[in-house]
């Protein structure tokens, strides 16, 4: 064994030192390592990349949306002109707006495909029920992003789609008319409506989506990824030759909070 092997190289030290420094003070490195090197079933397949693809599409929306906000003006008299300016005059504005516009469609399609995958795999079953509920809430929030964002270009399609969308809520029994008036910020669609849709679209709903994604991922990591149900080696499959004692031993529920400590 050479001395070079026992002593880490300068290069290695230069990498390790800041990481160790960070780990000692935050534990973040360990957290990331746990996330990256956790075990997933050996038989996962390409359909199971749809969730992370959805996350990517959402991140595209976040980044492009933040940049668009630098050029967009949320008032009825200026909104349309600022959209024309972004799309046709600002350098690469068409690309950022185009990515945001089409990324929205891609994001919604991916959410539905991801949901279809989870349904096909039966991956919403015990113990992952809550993650299904979180996913449906994310779908609703995603559709709400689509609805509130659609008004912002302030063109004919945008305006009238929003008129119908708001009045749809207005037909809900009892509270509907109040909800519709709240969404409009008055009895008619106007400057208040555009401003509050803008606020909902870029602050309120994305905030909720980030929080829900955090919980969604936390549960994915805690509960693990399912094997395809048709897999011969599906993790957790029934074992015909399993001794009954082992079965009984396993039926005892773990103590609260001890689930991870196996």
């Amino acid at each position, binding site marked *: 064994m050479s001395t070079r092997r026992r002593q880490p190289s300068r290069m290695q030290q230069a990498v390790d030192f800041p990481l160790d420094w960070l780990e000692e003070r935050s534990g973040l490195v360990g957290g990331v390592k746990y996330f990256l090197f956790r075990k997933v079933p050996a038989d996962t397949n390409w359909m199971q990349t749809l969730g992370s693809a959805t996350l990517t599409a959402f991140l595209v929306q976040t980044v492009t949306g933040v940049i668009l906000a630098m050029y967009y003006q949320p008032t009825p008299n200026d909104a349309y002109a600022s959209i024309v300016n972004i799309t046709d005059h600002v350098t690469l504005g068409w690309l950022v707006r*185009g990515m945001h516009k089409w990324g929205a469609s891609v994001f919604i399609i991916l959410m539905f495909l991801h949901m279809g995958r989870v349904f096909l795999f039966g991956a919403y079953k015990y113990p992952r029920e809550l993650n299904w509920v979180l996913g449906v809430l994310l779908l609703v929030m995603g559709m709400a992003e689509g609805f509130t964002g659609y008004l912002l270009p302030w063109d004919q399609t945008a*305006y009238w789609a929003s008129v119908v969308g708001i009045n749809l809520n207005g037909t809900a029994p009892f509270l509907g008319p109040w909800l519709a008036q709240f969404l409009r910020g008055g009895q008619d669609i106007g400057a208040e409506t555009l401003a509050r849709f803008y606020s909902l679209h870029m602050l309120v709903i994305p905030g909720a989506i980030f929080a829900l994604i955090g919980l969604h991922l936390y549960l994915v990591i805690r509960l693990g990824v*399912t094997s395809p149900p048709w897999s011969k080696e599906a993790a957790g499959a029934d074992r015909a030759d399993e001794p009954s004692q082992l079965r*009984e031993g396993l*039926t005892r529920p773990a103590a609260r909070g001890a689930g991870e400590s196996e």
Partner: protein
Amino acid sequence: MAAGKPSAVDERRAQFARYKQDVKARGKSFYPFAMFEDTVMSLVVVTVIVALAAVWKWTAWAPHHLGTHQGLLGPEYTAPADPGTTNFVPRPDWYFYFLFYLLRIFKWPETVFLGTVGVPTIALILLIALPFYDVRRERRLSRRPVAVVGLVLTILSMAILTWKGATASEALASEVIADVPNWISAEKLPPAAVPGAKLFAVAGCTACHTYLGTGSSNLGAPDLTTIGTRNLGIAFQIRHLQCPSCVNPGSPMPKFASLGTTRLHELAVFLEASKGKK
């Protein structure tokens, strides 16, 4: 618990414990094995988004340097919002087409709120509650017939609603004018009847009458595809258009005398030339 058959709750707990064991014993590390596939898929997604944006821009803008030009993927933007519009036909974004068409299905006033909030709310509740009414452990599709049928029906109905929503049209001047060339070729209309055909399309006749399947029959007015075979004569047609109830007592059709004799003559020529599909 030691004696007898284990309960359903025990069985699913046992299964999850087995899952944890199996993953620990035989699983692969998320990084790099699963993450590689995730990364490739994300690259595809980002590429598709950029490609869509590029196709959208270059087919809509490049030909005429006009943002409202209809490219392959639609215009960059439509005309500015006009809350007082008199000719705009509103349509939602494609992913709300299913809801849009659902609203057209519930065309009785008593059922409006079923389409607007009733059905969507029930569907959402069924969706959220899925893991709480489908509590069996079974995950193999061959043994989940109800789930498979439900999925197929859901996809089919969403696809049909979306398709119907995308192709829905109303008998309005702005849309009917596009059908005039079909009328000319289907009925072999002579050139003299063409101005009348265009007038017929934009003058709102199709709000009550139908012509070769275009228009609305909601109000019970007769189909005019073969009106020319009755050989009523141009003079009669003009008199009828000027004052329908004078010629045909009790007719609810409004008077079109204000169109002027030239236009009424054009309309009459068109109607007399309409002798059905040839």
